[in-house]
């Protein structure tokens, strides 16, 4: 079972990874965007990180994720602000009121987050966005669950699928996001938002593995 402590650790680990990869994410965005993705994400997750202590007494995971969502929406800006904000908002709704998450809850959380991003950003698979990371990972998680794997095992396959999905963004021609303005020149570069999405799932896995 995933409990409140896991969630808080996950947010902390993700925030740390973003900080560590701030320049890397920004460089990826410089190549096919406007050189701010790492800066944007770091601004948002520094805020989240500073809020974590205030969640100590808050047992409702849904409420925690909802607060995180609001923080992200009001501090990241750009494309990733509404997208991550919506991911967390929809994820929070999926697990509203829960203090522990079953495997099924985690699946629903991931699916709801993805659906939120799809609804807000209207990107499709193959458009070279974070959807190309989020979407295959949810599918992998669902499949693993169907095969009777544990949550940890399912998350492992999800992260593997995310990594593959991220790698697959490299040869893609961007159709959404700033990279789309580059036309053919977007080919050959890894999507920055996909990279941060991969880090988000990877952080979750690391916490469950610990």
């Amino acid at each position, binding site marked *: 079972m995933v409990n409140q402590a896991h969630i808080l650790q996950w947010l902390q680990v993700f925030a740390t990874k973003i900080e560590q990869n701030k320049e890397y994410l*920004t460089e990826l965005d*410089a*190549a*096919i*965007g*406007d*050189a*701010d993705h790492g*800066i*944007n994400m770091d*601004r948002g997750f520094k805020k989240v990180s500073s809020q974590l202590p205030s969640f100590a007494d808050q047992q409702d995971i849904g409420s925690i994720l909802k607060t995180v969502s609001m923080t992200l*929406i*009001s*501090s*990241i*800006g*750009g*494309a*990733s*602000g*509404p*997208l991550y*904000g919506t991911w967390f908002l929809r994820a929070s709704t999926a697990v509203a009121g829960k203090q522990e998450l079953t495997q099924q809850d985690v699946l629903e959380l991931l699916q709801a987050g993805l659906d939120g991003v799809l609804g*807000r*950003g209207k990107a*499709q698979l193959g*458009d070279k966005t974070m959807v190309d990371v989020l979407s295959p990972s949810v599918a992998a998680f669902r499949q693993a669950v169907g095969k009777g794997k544990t949550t940890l095992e399912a998350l492992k396959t999800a992260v593997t699928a995310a990594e593959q999905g991220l790698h697959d963004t490299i040869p893609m021609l961007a*159709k*959404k*996001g*700033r990279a*789309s*303005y*580059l*036309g053919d*020149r977007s080919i050959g570069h890894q999507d920055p938002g996909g990279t941060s999405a991969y880090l988000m799932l990877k952080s979750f896995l690391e916490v469950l593995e610990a």
Partner: protein
Amino acid sequence: MKKLINKPENFVRESLEGMAAAHSDLIKVNYDPTFIYRATAPIPGKVAIISGGGSGHEPMHVGFVGTGMLDAACPGEVFTSPTPDQILEAAKQVDGGAGILYIVKNYGGDVMNFEMATELARAEGVRVLNILIDDDVAVKDSLYTQGRRGVGTTILAEKICGAAAEQGYDLTQIADLCRRVNLHGRSMGIALTSCTVPAKGSPTFELSDREIELGIGIHGEPGRERTDIKSVDEVTEILTRSIIEDAAYSRTLREWDENKGEWVDVELINPPLEKGDRLLAFVNSMGGTPLSELYLVYRKLAQICEQQGLQIVRNLIGPYITSLEMQGCSITLLKLDDEMIRLWDAPVKTPSWRWGI
């Protein structure tokens, strides 16, 4: 990185503090969340116009708040869209009861944040409409993509709609007018150099001394194509022809439908330019290009328009939509009608744009 700044993370805020100190007769600045608004807002019974986007494009939008133009501007971090809560607070601050028009450049980030802000404002009972500007002909295909970016036409729409609001147009009329301006504006830009986002500290891209970027946006991002340096006549020819020869452009854009109470996809078509059209010609510096060079661009642009039977009846030349210190320029041609000309000529008094009063 050499810039006239203190800490990069304070750049946007301190710049706004400077504006507040310099223009207290025209504007006020709210810091948390950040927005600039008219010193006299709200103006009861007047439609309010709000725009916003990443910082780094000054004077757009913060320099255009004042009489005859914007009621509020929401600056994000450098090249990063503002957040929905910023926009919502600005809307509540300037709402004079006649509704609010958001003028939004068609970038994913701006669109999503302003859509959320529209939903939030509507939920609080503030009547908001949302018109997108997408005028950058460097972006060719619109199907299945983000579509064209909003560039030069944005501030022309802000000026024209701002004048209309001042003259008592109602919200629907102004939204229609804004959409019409967008349908008749086309732009394209080039860069000679990149620019440096303060928080990043190094140039977004590197260009050799013999290269230029064609078809850039306004966020310091590389363009559609990298090519050899050309003479200003050649550059102007490329930009102008791309605009003049742009065929009818069709796409769907999302607008809020007040009757249905939800977002709807609207199919919109830019008619191509035709001989005899009256134009507003706007030659814009990306920030670091001297005014003298803009006049070289204008010179060639005017020659081409004349050859093509297009009549320039108004012009605007200078740094209005910039990408920090980037060198380069953009051209916008807007087909005018009598109403637009009348509104263009109307008085305006903002920190960075003033005439007639």
